[in-house]
């Protein structure tokens, strides 16, 4: 049994111009102790996927799924009250900008104690001891002093560590991290990534990491799912995905990122993917990527490709996956 199972998840938003589908049948599984990356560009639906898991999508959005379970409990059948018992407890989240997710008027100690008091019934006093312990674990120096401080007194990196500590106090089974390092400097990012890997090893929590940074994905994830226009187009363990991408979009992304560790004097033109991400109101027919795809033929315009598994554990939704892989190996 997987920790998190998601099958055919759709999210529809009611708008003045009619229904808008943000997610088209998303499938995702996360095993205990695994770091799964969710990659894609703005508007591809990666954040909506995470918000659906915690049922925090905007009230105008309707979530439907064949299956959405955490440890075999169906999340969509829970009452709002039961769901509140799960958020911050068995599933917790970290967001991109720690300053906007921390309350500026409450001390770090009080904010971090709250989940323990609410979910675990601890007294504020004993919660504080646990908070100090967790703050130490995420690498905040002098935690017993820091608990009395306010968010603005912490640096950006320290705030993100405090956010991670807050997400971890109740020892969640699943940690959802939505672009946790995007707002941070590279040296701080490296520290946070190292920390997340270490915490995963220590707590065996699963991590669902949302990011657009392929470097981050390559460095910390065990498995990766690539999203495009509200669909999951490719999913594979990180090694094979980078070695043999099977979807032209994944391949395009990899060719468009500049690399730092190249041979001296090596000139490599970045092969940008032409065009832009489609507007959700005007998603192209057939395969949504076909107007930007170098492999596209007539069939791509007409038919949505089925998800296939050309290699073990490597799924892809492309009519010409075999050809893409062949070219990657060559």
């Amino acid at each position: 049994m997987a920790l998190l199972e998601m099958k055919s998840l759709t999210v529809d938003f009611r708008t003045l111009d009619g229904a808008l589908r943000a997610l088209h049948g998303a499938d995702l599984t996360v095993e205990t102790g695994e770091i799964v990356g969710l990659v894609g560009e703005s508007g591809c639906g990666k954040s909506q996927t995470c918000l659906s898991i915690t049922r925090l999508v905007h009230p105008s959005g309707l979530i439907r799924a064949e299956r959405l379970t955490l440890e075999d409990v169906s999340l969509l059948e829970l009452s709002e009250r039961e769901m509140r018992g799960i958020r911050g407890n068995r599933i917790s989240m970290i967001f991109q900008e720690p300053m906007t997710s921390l309350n500026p008027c409450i001390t770090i100690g009080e904010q971090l104690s709250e989940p323990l008091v609410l979910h675990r019934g601890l007294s504020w006093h004993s919660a504080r001891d646990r908070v100090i312990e967790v703050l130490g674990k995420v690498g905040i120096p002098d935690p017993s002093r820091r608990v009395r401080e306010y968010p603005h007194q912490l640096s950006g990196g320290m705030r993100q560590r405090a956010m991670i500590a807050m997400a971890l106090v109740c020892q969640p089974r699943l940690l959802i991290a939505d672009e946790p390092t995007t707002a941070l400097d590279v040296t701080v990012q490296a520290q946070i990534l190292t920390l997340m890997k270490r915490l995963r090893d220590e707590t065996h929590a699963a991590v669902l990491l949302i990011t657009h940074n392929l470097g981050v994905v390559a460095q910390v994830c065990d498995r990766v799912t690539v999203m495009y226009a509200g669909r999951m187009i490719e999913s594979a363990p990180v090694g094979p995905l980078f070695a043999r991408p099977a979807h032209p979009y994944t391949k395009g992304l990899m060719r468009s990122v500049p690399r730092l560790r190249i041979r001296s004097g090596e000139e490599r033109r970045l092969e940008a993917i032409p065009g832009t991400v489609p507007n959700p109101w005007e998603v192209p027919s057939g395969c949504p990527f076909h107007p930007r795809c170098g492999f596209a033929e007539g069939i791509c315009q007409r038919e949505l490709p089925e998800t296939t598994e050309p290699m073990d554990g490597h799924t892809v939704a492309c009519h010409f996956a075999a050809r893409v892989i062949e070219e990657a190996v060559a």
Partner: protein
Amino acid sequence: MSEPLLEFRQVRKWFPITGGVLQLTIAHVHAVDDVSLVIHRGETLGLVGESGCGKSTLGRLGVKLLKPTRGDVLYRGRGLRQLWGRALREFRRKVQIIFQDPYSSLNPRMAAGGVVAEGIAIHRLSGGRPPLDRAADYLERVGLSRDDLPRYPHEFSGGQRQRLGIARALAVQPELIVCDEPVSALDVSIQAQIIELLRELQQEYGLSYLFVAHDLAVVRHISDRIAVMYLGRLCEEAPRDLLCDRPLHPYTLALLSAAPEPDPTIPLQPIPLPGDVPSRVNPPKGCRFAPRCTLASDRCRERQPEWREVEPGHWVACHEA
């Protein structure tokens, strides 16, 4: 080496902090301290560093959006302080800037055509044709279309807005463009489009760039030379490959080691940097990096290292290098 175009000479920029009832200056933020740099004609100088290191301030000093507290910025050998009247106007045309967030730097009530045509009209560069007509040429050159002339900034996507920002800068036929984090707000696939566009335009128009960014991989890709800044001072400057393959300053090393490579077979092995970036109001008196540097000795904590050339074209400010 070709002629120097823009030169920073011992440039310092301190921003005053005022306080009290009388709003007296009580301290200074040391944004840029004694920076000397040269940008030659036709080359790209990459300027990297983390937030608050002063790289954007330096970019703004270069286009005279800010005036240095001390030191001089020279354009073709003439100090910017001495520029006025016609010469200043010419400088304003020849040196352009594009920003990270093109949305906040474009007038929301001005259509794309106006944004681009304004400079053409002011500097009388339309060559007898209607400025809007010329503007359309530039829109097409940067990958937009003539039909975009009447569209407003909010109607464009992020990447298109950045293209518009580039067209605006390009339209006045500049020699140098300061690019202040031009791709950091963009998606990966769009980022590559903009980088390649900037490179093409450089070839075509013989432009020079001062490319300010925090992403070393992007900077390595586009620059001829790279300068690294930390807390208002330069740490190291060298030709691109030299800096990336044989860095000498411990901070450059740390920065390089922290960049995650998009390749799972090259594992991330960041050099730990203890502590946080010190305050820019009271920077450390010796080497600014000393409090976080594993190689630091008493000398580093006491004395500011001098900016010296260790091999041709490779400059570093470190006692231990």
